[in-house]
């Protein structure tokens, strides 16, 4: 089968899985919905591998294959097909997405055990993977937008999965609204491009873009900025980032899939895909780089003080995506995408580990209450630490190679980018710090009661409650199920976390600079015509970068050890001394408060106004009531004719006759 044939298969499997789980949700026995879902994604992964091999069969110049299923619409000047593009970039993304998704599905089979919405969950999850794959494989802006919107919808469905929790539904709405803002940006950007180039498919647009625009042309910059709005909304960058921490209300595997490996990387993918545009509008690319850097620093600072385990990991996602955005904005596409891949591995792993720890804590997510799980949960401890080491960029782990490659490229660009690179290194230090803050607080130090119970083989139980607000819940439909599974006791969880840990460990060796440039080489055909293709930092510079990165990572880990293990009291002292700073960071730089005051409150007020005044008074009373009143009045006037009064009828007859006669007289005379 050809590569594009495999491409269609990649899309068909998740849809089939979704339909089976969705339509048969009542009938599927036991865990079969979970296995069906997982098998569907495994099929996708297999098809992706097929795509890969077939693509490699083609010579390098021909590694861009487009296939159209049918014509969406064809009008004057606009031809849009439902077509997919199989090239190294999309194959790479498909492999990462489907591979990691498969492992997360397997993990979810154990995690969501006992939940009333088990089949619904897998239907949603398959739908999500389908949308993401559609987004990746799209060959034109229309299909991209379809996938983009579906991904937003799927993320809403999954974040508010436990829909009877008010915090969850609110978080889902928040995510969806911000995603829609991104959608609008993307649509406007696509429209601007269409307006100038007359094409909607990537090939057409990218071919025309050099003719249609000059460098830094106003319209092109505007279009790129609009695309950036879309990318930032999806990837949770400043200022459209507020939905990501709240999105932790969803089940942990959802966080692991959507907010680590796939959806948030869609923005990075988008910028990489539309790189000809950004290269022709360096202003937009520079803005993107600056925002990426700002986000990575912001998120790192907030992660240092956050107390909810999942939120720390969420902020670290935001930060790492900032690195990726920085990478693709400085035209280090290979590096950026490499980091995407390694991040998918270790972040998904971290979330899975967090899920296991939270299960051991019987649903409690607060770091303040955790400690000392090292002895009772060895498997979780090892995998979590591997993930944290990768995140921190400890030498030889995967994150080490990918993150530092981005920073090396950034430095190489010179000029203002040096500042960004320095900031990036500082934030890397912070990253290592907070990563190990988590490790030390959760696994080291004296064990808490739940850990001690677990050491005796007894998994803690607690009354179900909302982890954020503490209000009690039940375990019926729309709430989390009664079961808690930890990795040590559940083979699907182990089966998922193990390979990811391995990949987090060795994944970096795919692209060691100077030794194995496989990834870079593989992605070359997509980025061949980039004007930065030849501008690569020298091996020496790269090794120097790696060295600096290693130092920074080890320094961060050491600092964390110092604060959290040796001088525990120091932490509280620091907090008291720097209360304002601490509050500022704890409140996430007051972004939520600002948005609440400037956007949410006015909008809500307008909505209330709309309901009370516009809807009730104006529409209901005046327009509708008025119309009704007029009709009533008219009909009661008409009804008066039917009085049953004989003489009235006779009078009417006579008058009518007279009138008719008059009419005839007049027409005859005239």
């Amino acid at each position, binding site marked *: 089968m050809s590569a594009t044939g495999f491409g269609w298969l990649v899309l068909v499997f998740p849809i089939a899985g979704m339909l089976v789980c969705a339509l048969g949700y009542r009938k599927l026995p036991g865990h079969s919905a979970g296995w069906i879902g997982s098998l569907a994604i495994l099929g996708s992964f297999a098809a992706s591998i097929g795509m890969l091999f077939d693509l490699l069969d083609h010579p390098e110049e021909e590694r861009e294959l487009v296939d159209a299923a049918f014509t969406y619409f064809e009008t004057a000047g606009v031809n849009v097909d439902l077509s997919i593009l199989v090239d190294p970039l999309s194959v790479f993304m498909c492999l990462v997405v489907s591979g990691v998704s498969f492992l997360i599905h397997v993990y979810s089979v154990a995690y969501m055990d006992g939940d009333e919405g088990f089949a619904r969950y897998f239907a949603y999850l398959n739908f999500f993977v389908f949308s993401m794959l559609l987004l990746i494989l799209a060959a034109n802006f229309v299909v991209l937008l379809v996938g983009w919107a579906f991904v937003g919808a799927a993320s809403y469905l999954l974040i508010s999965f436990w829909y009877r929790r008010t915090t969850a539904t609110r978080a889902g709405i928040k995510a969806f609204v911000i995603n829609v803002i991104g959608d609008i940006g993307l649509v406007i950007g696509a429209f601007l491009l269409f307006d100038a180039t007359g094409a909607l498919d990537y090939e057409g647009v990218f071919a025309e873009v050099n003719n249609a625009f000059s460098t830094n042309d106003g319209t092109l910059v505007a279009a790129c900025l609009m695309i950036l709005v879309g990318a930032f909304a999806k990837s949770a960058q400043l200022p459209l980032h507020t939905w990501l921490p709240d999105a932790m209300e969803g089940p942990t595997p959802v966080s692991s899939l959507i907010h680590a490996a796939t959806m948030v990387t869609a923005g990075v993918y988008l910028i990489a895909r539309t790189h000809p545009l950004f290269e022709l509008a360096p202003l937009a690319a520079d803005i993107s780089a600056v925002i990426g850097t700002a986000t990575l620093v912001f998120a790192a600072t907030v992660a240092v003080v956050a107390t909810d385990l999942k939120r720390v990991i969420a902020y670290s996602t935001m930060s790492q995506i900032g690195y990726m955005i920085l990478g693709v904005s400085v035209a280090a596409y290979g590096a950026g995408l490499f980091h995407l891949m390694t991040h998918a591995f270790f972040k998904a792993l971290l979330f899975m580990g967090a899920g296991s720890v939270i299960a051991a804590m019987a649903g409690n997510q607060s770091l303040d209450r955790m400690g000392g799980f090292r002895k009772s949960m060895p498997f979780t401890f090892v995998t979590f630490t591997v993930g944290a080491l990768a995140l921190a960029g400890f030498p030889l782990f995967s994150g080490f190679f990918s993150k530092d490659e981005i920073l090396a490229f950034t430095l190489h660009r010179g000029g203002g980018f040096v500042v960004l690179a320095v900031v990036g290194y500082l934030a890397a230090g912070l990253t290592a710090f907070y990563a190990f803050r988590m490790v030390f607080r959760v696994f080291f130090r004296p064990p808490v009661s739940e850990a001690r119970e677990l050491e005796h083989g007894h998994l803690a139980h607690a009354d179900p409650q909302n982890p954020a607000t503490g209000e009690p819940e039940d375990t019926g439909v729309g709430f989390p199920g009664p079961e808690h599974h930890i990795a040590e006791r559940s083979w699907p969880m182990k089966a998922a976390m193990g390979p990811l840990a391995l990949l987090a460990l060795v994944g970096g060796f795919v692209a060691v600079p100077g030794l194995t440039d496989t990834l870079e080489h593989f992605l070359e055909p997509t980025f061949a015509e980039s004007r930065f293709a030849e501008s690569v930092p020298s091996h020496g510079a790269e090794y120097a970068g790696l060295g600096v990165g290693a130092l920074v990572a080890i320094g961060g880990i050491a600092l964390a050890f110092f604060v959290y293990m040796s001088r525990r009291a120091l932490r509280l002292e620091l907090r008291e001394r720097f209360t304002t700073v601490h509050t500022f960071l704890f409140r996430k730089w007051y972004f939520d408060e600002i948005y609440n005051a400037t956007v949410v409150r006015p909008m809500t007020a307008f909505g209330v106004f709309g309901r009370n005044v516009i809807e009730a008074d104006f529409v209901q009373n005046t327009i509708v009531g008025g119309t009704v009143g007029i009709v009533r009045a008219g009909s009661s006037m008409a009804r008066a004719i039917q009085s049953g009064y004989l*003489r009235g009828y006779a*009078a009417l007859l*006579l*008058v009518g006759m*007279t009138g008719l*006669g008059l009419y005839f007289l007049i027409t005859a005379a005239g």
Partner: protein
Amino acid sequence: MFFLAGAGALGGAIGVVTLRNPFYSVLSLVAHLIFLAVLFLLLQAEFLAAAQVVVYAGAVMVLYVFVVAYVGGSDEPLRPEGGALRVLGPLFAFVLVVELCIALLGSSLGLIDSPGADVPAGFGTPAEIGSLLLRRFLVPFEAASYLLLVAAVGAVVLARRRRGLEEQEVGA
């Protein structure tokens, strides 16, 4: 001759409308009918004049007299007659008269200002009517007799007493 008969007819008509007692109205109509028969004679419709007197004034009005005697009809009704229509009725009618006159007198029909066309000698005689009825107007003739049958049946149906149906007391 015309004016005499015309005045009589008109007087009878006005009498019908204005007289309070329905009995007097019936008598007034009878007078009106007879004067109308005279007018028919003036128009050389002899058979019709005879039919008018015999059938209309004779049979139909007698029926009316019976019913008026039976039903009565009060002399003075409880409320003043008519309300607004007491004035408006004649007003509308007056408007209609004016209009019709305008139509008639302003019309361009030929012969309207003359006594009429020359008619053959047998015009309006029973023989002539009879031959017309049985030749040209056979279908209307038959239809009219059918109509009479239906009316008779209807009258019988209306007049019969229904068994089992109590006569209702009507509130004042």
